[in-house]
């Protein structure tokens, strides 16, 4: 067992973990943050994508938890802020960019990393930027539209300084979600 300390969605956690434990299993099983999903075992599907240190999207099945020691991890549960959706979350809903919802957290976190690196992507750049994330329901059409919409929203001055839309849902603690 190795003792690690890391920050997830703004909260610092300390745990003893097996060195072989994947980051995604640490998030899901140790912290109970089940919004990050596992869809494959070969780093193809991207359902487990999280954002590391504020900008880089990574596949949490491709990292050991011990490699994330000292890092700041942002998961889908931490993306909304003070009960307001991030523009990507709002745009995914507005554009019907999800059906079964399983790939959605990873897709949104991958798009987050994409827009950090390239705030004004073309359609082709969005498609290329999301090629590490598989969706079997939407044919990607509405996902592309949602990322385009979010990119526009994030530069629009009408929203608040954090680029978020108005209060749209009751905040839920981003501390570990109790699985029942």
């Amino acid at each position, binding site marked *: 067992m190795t003792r690690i300390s890391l920050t997830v969605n703004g909260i610092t956690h300390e745990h003893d973990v097996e060195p072989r434990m994947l980051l995604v299993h640490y998030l899901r099983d140790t912290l109970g943050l089940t919004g990050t999903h596992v869809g494959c075992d070969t780093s193809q599907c991207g359902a487990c994508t999280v954002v590391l240190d504020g900008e880089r999207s990574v596949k949490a099945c491709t990292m050991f938890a011990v490699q994330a020691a000292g890092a700041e991890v942002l998961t889908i549960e931490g993306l909304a802020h003070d009960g307001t959706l991030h523009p990507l979350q709002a745009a995914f809903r507005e554009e019907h960019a999800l059906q079964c*919802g399983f790939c959605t957290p990873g897709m949104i976190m991958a798009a987050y990393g994409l827009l950090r690196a390239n705030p004004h992507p073309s359609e082709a750049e969005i498609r290329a930027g999301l090629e590490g994330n598989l969706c079997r329901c939407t044919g990607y059409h509405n996902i*592309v539209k949602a990322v385009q919409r979010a990119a526009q929203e994030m530069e629009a001055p009408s929203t608040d300084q954090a680029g978020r839309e108005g209060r749209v849902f009751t905040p839920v603690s981003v501390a570990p979600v109790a699985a029942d």
Partner: protein
Amino acid sequence: MATATTPTRPLIGARVTRREDLRFITGRGRYTDDITLPGTTYAAFVRSPYAHARITRIDTDAARRARGVHAVYTGADLAAGGVNGIPVGWVLPDMKLTDRRAIAVDEVRYVGEAVAVVIADTPYTAKDAAELVAVEYEELPAVTDAVAAMQPGAPVVHANAPNNVCFHWTIGDAEKTDAAIRGAATVVRQRLVNQRLIPNAIEPRAALASYNGATDELTLYVTSQNPHVHRLIMGAFVLGVPEHKFRVIAPDVGGGFGSKIFVYPEEVVMCWATRQLGRPVKWTAERRESFMTDAHGRDHVTDVEMAFDARGTVLALRVKTVANLGAHLSLFAPAIPTYLYGTLLNGVYAFPTIYAEVDGVLTHTTPVDAYRGAGRPEACYVLERTMDIAARQLGIDPAELRRRNFVPAGSFPYQTPVALSYDSGNYAPALDRALQMIGYDAFRAEQEAARREGRYLGIGISSYIEACGLAPSQVVGSLGAQAGLWESATVRVHPTGKVTIFTGSHSHGQGHETTFAQLAADELGIAIDDVEIVHGDTGRVPFGMGTYGSRSGAVGGTAIHMSIEKIKEKGRRIAAHLLEAAPEDVEFSGGRFSVKGSPDRGKTFAEVSLAAYLAHSMPAGTEPGLDATSFYDPSNFTFPFGTHVCTVEVNPRTGVVKVLRYVAVDDVGNVINPMIVDGQLHGGIAQGTAQALWERAVYDEGGQLLTASLMDYAVPKADMLPLFETDRTVTPSPVNPLGIKGVGEAGTIASTPAVANAVLDALSPFGITHLDMPLTPATVWQAIQSATRRG
């Protein structure tokens, strides 16, 4: 639109964003693997590395002794524990049944078949211990190709089917068809391979079973499209668990596409093991396990003959298909290449006669069952690919050949030569609109010009028919179904006029929580936020057949409608009593019961709801309360249709196909939510395009699945697909009062031949008339090379 939005129905037909989305976009969805109960243990399966072998010895001692391991079970343990085989839910005449065990006993018949299960404290320890189970096999010869499996001397999959033929099924008039083909001016003949696909819902299958010994209650959380079907089959046939002590919950389910209809071995093992251990047991598939054990789809080899007269009018269709069923009969496997395929071979055309025969063949491969479209894409591919080959052979434009042979508008209901009666249709407008959107004539001119520059553009058309909501129960029962195919809905009105609807349909991405609420809110004249949709739990929903075959809107939606009608009728009687009017003088509109001619004399729906529960003043003989349950058994299928057109460019140097544009004009009857309908089409088109261009399950000769990961099996990515251009015509179905036809599979059915036809059209200057899918760069490049050498 025939029954489009009116002022009193603001939601039906409106683009309402989905109510279920909030939990999914914030990470608060609850899928099976997200659920962990106190004391949960974890299962890992030991699986056969051979396609066919005799199990000579299983040594589980080391695994049992490993730290954290609770139990190791083999097939013999399950058999001794009273676990029966998993039955098949559709039985054809003279069909050979296979004894499918949740864990193999003595013999394994496909790579990935379970031979033992280890249950331990954590998933990691379970997987570690699974590697300690020592299995000795005597490898036996295997056969994976269905045509080869029928040959004399082929390895035998099940001893009771000596030539591996599980069933031989026919439909139509053989003599009449033979005669028509003999007398035809032109007969187009082609062998078509519809390759095996692997569904790949992004959520892997999972099951969590929990047994409470004090109450004798068994609960199963499972990735299911139809939890009541799971409960009935597992409870009554496999495990002997009484239905009233068995609760099956299908929580959020991450895509199904058919693959989560069926009762699978792992679910049976979880339910049995939790009763042995007294602790919850959970299993979640690794993707590799999904590839090996989720039911596969398609896998047909077909010889087709399509006969025409001198003017290009269709005279007859003769089809002979060999369908690979895999190593065991999955739940609905026998129905897919027969009643969901042979009956669809009339397509949108006026064939005077059709004859089809199908051999269902067992092989040493993963079982094959329904995958999005399930028989209908295979039928559509046979027709639409052949129609394009015929157009070239006859020298008639492919659009014109189709139009010439459509079932004429005005001849509905239309009786086909293969048993079905089409409810309603008008095929030419959808074709015309699709051609107009793509700019057909302009594209043909562009194609000509491009060819002179050495560029190869192609256009492909596919005019399809789908059949939704398999019905009625009496008929499907006579055809071999071991279940009815109705749907139920309970609408419970609360005293405050809020409504909870319990539907037997199940959403695994289709958006029922939104569309059914749109329907109910409009019909009751209440706010959509006053309606809750409950599905996927046998403990809450009275009964249901689940979601597959694009049945939820047409069948599940109608069941809701029927319950609402009953509620409105009871409400009208209560309102009349309160208003001191005759019931026939009370009408319901906009959420209010009022006296005809005196609109100010009325009661709101909420007031009547409260009155029904207070029961202080009820009409004589009327029970308190306000709820209703309906079981809707449709009189027929519904038949959506449409035309899809695709344009591509083929790079002759690399064989790479680029999809340039994709136009879909569909007629799915009345639409509840156009946003969701478009979304269903987008996803279906992506899956169908992927079959045409990329996806193929590959077994080697020894039966190893070579495409057992997402590195080897080409599920399309965002940068492989275009934006899709959609439009609709609207021909309501007369089958149900909502006029709904269904949309879940239309995109998959239509798109595969549209894309394949486009590629073959692009390759026509090389003299290439047909290539089997997938039309990968290697396939296309090799075909161009051979054609050029033939030159």
